[in-house]
């Protein structure tokens, strides 16, 4: 899966940078698609947007605002919750998070793997996380101290 990185300018602020990705051939970020796909959970969608804004401008991505260890050990996959709504992301530190997509987690399930739709979104984020992690490791993406990104020549495999 190839993609571009987008910084969401209306959510990023003095404290943190809100990033998402646009899959090749799409014009919307996964974060925008997440909002559109889950519009029926209006108050939770709105709550997540408010939290993103507050973190970007006032609080940063404090570790405890997220639930961690959602993927393989050490891959940085985390989730931002509101009610039963789950937004998957790649957590780097309190200034940098890449947001993917997610969905509604039925209360009767314990793990996202038990729900096909949610599992697909989580797996999609895992793939993106893997590529971004590799790019950071290879210095193709450099995360600066303030959370801004420097992207060098990065060819997709």
């Amino acid at each position: 899966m190839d993609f571009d990185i987008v910084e969401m300018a209306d959510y990023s602020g003095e404290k943190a940078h809100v990033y998402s990705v646009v899959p090749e051939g799409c014009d919307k970020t996964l974060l925008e698609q997440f909002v559109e796909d889950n519009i029926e959970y209006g108050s939770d969608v709105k709550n997540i947007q408010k939290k993103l804004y507050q973190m970007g401008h006032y609080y940063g991505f404090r570790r405890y605002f997220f639930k961690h260890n959602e993927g393989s050990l050490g891959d940085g996959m985390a989730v931002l919750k509101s009610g039963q709504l789950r937004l998957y992301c790649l957590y780097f530190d309190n200034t940098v998070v890449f947001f993917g997509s997610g969905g509604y987690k039925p209360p009767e399930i314990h793990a996202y793997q038990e729900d096909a739709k949610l599992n697909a979104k989580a797996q999609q984020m895992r793939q993106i996380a893997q590529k971004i992690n590799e790019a950071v490791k290879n210095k193709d993406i450099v995360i600066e101290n303030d959370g801004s990104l420097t992207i060098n020549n990065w060819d997709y495999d």
Partner: protein
Amino acid sequence: MIRFIKRKSTGVMAEIFNTITPEEMQITGNKMLVAANIADLMESKGWTPAQFAEKFPKTEDEILQWLEGQTDFDIDTLTQISLVLGVDIQRLFAPVKDTKPKKNKRMSNKKLVLAE
């Protein structure tokens, strides 16, 4: 080559964002403020969420839920929390200190590919 784009949100996401009132935004901000203060005070005591939970007693999951920043705390609970943390209740509403980001060494000065 990957592109890096900085832009505002579009479509439904932008529409919803524009419906958020200052009051709604402030309520969310205050919930996150209290959660951030509780987390900072807990960590300053060297407690993990599990150790903090034992003081009440609560479950670790209940504490983690508090720290996520969406709990609508009542006065009884805030009083209980402040007593466990050994602070006045108003300390839970104090401006939070910046957390330190990790240090990354800049490895290259190559130009960023920026598209608007």
